[in-house]
């Protein structure tokens, strides 16, 4: 069949199973939008209010479905507005394909209207990118784009299509891609390494698992749980690993990292074997590397060879897809219990509970805390909601206290720390999981970075629940200013608008809670609503998030106050 390049783009998307994409039209991508108009019965395009919103929505969709999210934009500013989302998806290994229009081939390099070198700009923040200048390239390149985005360690791919390639015709035939000769997405597991790992695990006295998003991306949740239970090993999550295992599982001991739990951090330096699964030893997890788990042997289960020995030296590296490698490991593992060792975590939890948690979720002071709001959401949702958090204090509180009993339920910007992520990501998450409740937890700062996406929620009646925890500050930066900059609050005080009125301006039901007595009922009302709902909670202005590992300190030096 002979069709235009623009129509070919649509057929490629359909062939890849795409039925939903986010984007924003403009001059250089108009031929594709014209085809989207014709195919709107098969392919839903959601007009975000900013291209950045399109990328985060695609990410939110990808994170809850495990499928590739798609975003589209025009050339020039449309394309550059994708960069933050690409960088976020790159560092958090999220599979998205972004398609941008480009000026016609003959104008490339002429500084034409809305021309920008998006290939050059996006190179450091994409897993792969490619500029299509001929219509005939579209099917093979699009197939390759989806394959690369979703395979191995997933990531963002950007395809730039010149306008002439959209107008020109081609003989269309689609073949999905299942290999690129220079690319090894799934390293073959080494049986010897797995046997060595099993022996080390079986002999360990104080083994400790830290699991990351690799478990979720590899769909190895069952294997992780089986390993934890069979070997009786306490396990902790990284921020992106959260929800891979039920938060209430007795051996799931909490979160590692800067604002993680006390035991999981301190005991990192007391275990005799650290088993890292699908995580990359980010500096927010390890604190100072010079004092990180030096006493322990380290086994690193990882799909990306470049992560091995990058930050922490592994005694045994087990390369491969986590489902496959853990599956091979399990039969070699001896049943075991490490009760004394596990009790250490329980004792440390009690210390943290008395010093921090009690006051966070059952406060006795007058002002509302972020923690008690999260706790009410847990109760109202029975731990079943998808929680999408933005970046800052509320994010740390959400990832510390939100409870989950289903995987792919925690969506947050971990590696890049992108303020403004949550509102558009929640839209994508909801559209990817319409049968589940999606609650966005956002601070008053980040909310105003992408607040315009309320327009999408209104226009398409996307029934997300938006909770703004408003402390009238850029809370996390303010906390650092208080602790490390002698209380000089440089540009962290926010004079905020009436958020309820703004939501109402978009015809979204909205409430504000300023007192504890109204919190429970309002959260319940929100969770019971079938429609979009906005809830602003005025929380204490100058609360701090603890525990905390000061930047560059050891995990052992975590502060409880």
């Amino acid at each position, binding site marked *: 069949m002979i069709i235009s390049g623009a129509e070919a783009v649509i057929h490629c998307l359909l062939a890849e199973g795409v039925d939903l994409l986010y984007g924003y039209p403009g001059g250089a991508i108009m031929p594709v939008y014209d085809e989207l108009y014709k195919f709107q019965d098969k392919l839903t395009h959601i007009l975000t209010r900013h291209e950045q919103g399109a990328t985060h929505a695609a990410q939110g969709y990808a994170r809850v479905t495990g499928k590739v999210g798609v975003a589209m934009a025009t050339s020039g500013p449309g394309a550059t507005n994708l960069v933050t989302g690409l960088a976020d998806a790159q560092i958090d290994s999220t599979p998205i394909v972004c398609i941008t229009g480009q000026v016609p081939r003959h104008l490339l390099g002429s500084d034409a209207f809305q021309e920008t070198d998006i290939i050059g700009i996006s*190179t450091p923040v994409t897993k792969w990118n490619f500029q299509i200048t001929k219509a005939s390239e579209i099917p093979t390149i699009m197939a390759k784009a989806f394959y690369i985005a979703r395979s191995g360690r997933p990531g963002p791919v950007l395809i730039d299509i010149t306008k002439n390639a959209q107008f020109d015709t081609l003989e269309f035939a689609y073949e999905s891609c299942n290999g*690129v*000769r*220079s*690319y090894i997405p799934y390293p073959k597991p080494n049986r010897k390494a797995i046997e060595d790992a099993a022996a080390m695990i079986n002999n360990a006295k104080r083994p400790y698992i830290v699991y990351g998003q690799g478990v979720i991306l590899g769909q190895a949740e069952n294997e992780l749980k089986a390993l934890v239970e069979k070997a009786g090993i306490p396990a902790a999550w990284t921020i992106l690993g959260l929800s891979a295992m039920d938060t209430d599982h007795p051996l799931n001991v909490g979160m590692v990292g800067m604002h993680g739990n006390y035991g999981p951090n301190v005991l990192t330096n007391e275990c005799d074997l650290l088993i890292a699964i699908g995580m990359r030893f980010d500096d927010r997890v390890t604190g100072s590397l010079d004092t990180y788990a030096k006493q322990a042997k380290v086994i690193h289960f990882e799909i990306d060879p*470049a992560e091995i*020995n*990058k930050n922490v030296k592994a005694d045994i590296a087990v390369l491969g897809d986590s489902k496959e490698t853990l599956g091979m490991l399990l039969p070699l593992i001896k049943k075991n219990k490490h009760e004394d060792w596990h009790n250490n975590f329980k004792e440390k939890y009690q210390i943290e509970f008395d010093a921090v948690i009690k006051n966070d979720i059952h406060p006795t002071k007058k002002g509302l805390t972020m923690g008690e709001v999260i706790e009410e959401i847990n109760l109202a949702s029975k731990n079943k909601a998808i929680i999408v958090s933005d970046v800052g204090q509320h994010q740390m509180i959400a990832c510390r206290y939100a409870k989950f009993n289903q995987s792919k339920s925690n969506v947050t910007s971990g590696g890049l720390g992108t303020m403004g992520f949550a509102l558009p990501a929640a839209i994508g998450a909801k559209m990817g999981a319409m049968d589940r409740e999606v609650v966005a937890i956002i601070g008053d700062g980040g909310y105003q970075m992408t607040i315009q996406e309320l327009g999408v929620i209104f226009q398409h009646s996307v029934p997300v629940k938006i909770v703004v925890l408003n402390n009238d500050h850029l809370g996390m930066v303010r906390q650092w200013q208080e602790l490390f900059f002698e209380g000089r609050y440089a540009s962290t005080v926010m004079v905020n608008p009436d958020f309820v009125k703004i939501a109402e301006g978009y015809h979204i039901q909205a409430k504000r809670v300023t007192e504890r007595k109204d919190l429970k009922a309002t959260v319940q009302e929100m969770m019971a609503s079938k429609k979009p709902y906005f809830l602003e909670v005025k929380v204490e202005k100058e609360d701090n998030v603890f525990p905390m590992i000061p930047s560059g300190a050891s995990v052992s030096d975590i502060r409880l106050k």
Partner: protein
Amino acid sequence: MEKQWFTISVYSENNVGLLNRISGIFLKRHINIESLNVSKSEIDEVSKFTIVVYTTVTWVHNIVGQIEKQIEVIKAFYHTDEETIYQESALFKIASGLLFDERKIQNIIKENNSQIVTVSREFFVLAKSGRRHEIDEMHEQLKPFGIMQFVRSGRISVSKEEMQISALLKEFKE
């Protein structure tokens, strides 16, 4: 950790934009590329980047991992100077009169094992291949006479040990 010289060899597909992708890996880590050469390799349709850096073994390991991760990179290796045979090439453009009038120049050409590439009415061109210090020495010797133009290539090198690349490509095809 101590810094030393490393030669990074990258076998890749021959695609637009890959150089940008690879150089970005160095840029991101604030590591300077001391020399860069891109050519065809011993395998048809496979390009070879030869990159020289002065850094620590930790960093070169990290960089090679990141390079190899790029979709269109087939395989990347790093070697110390002791593990490779390497050299550079240089061209010197010098006024013709000197070739005939300055006996010393003829000696420099001979002693340095350099070749005369071309001689014209105005200038002659000398080519010299060898280690960096050999080219530098010849440059020092010629400098007093006046060098009209000078250029030196990036390092090219082959490893003493086999680079397991052909077998890998064969495996892909199977």
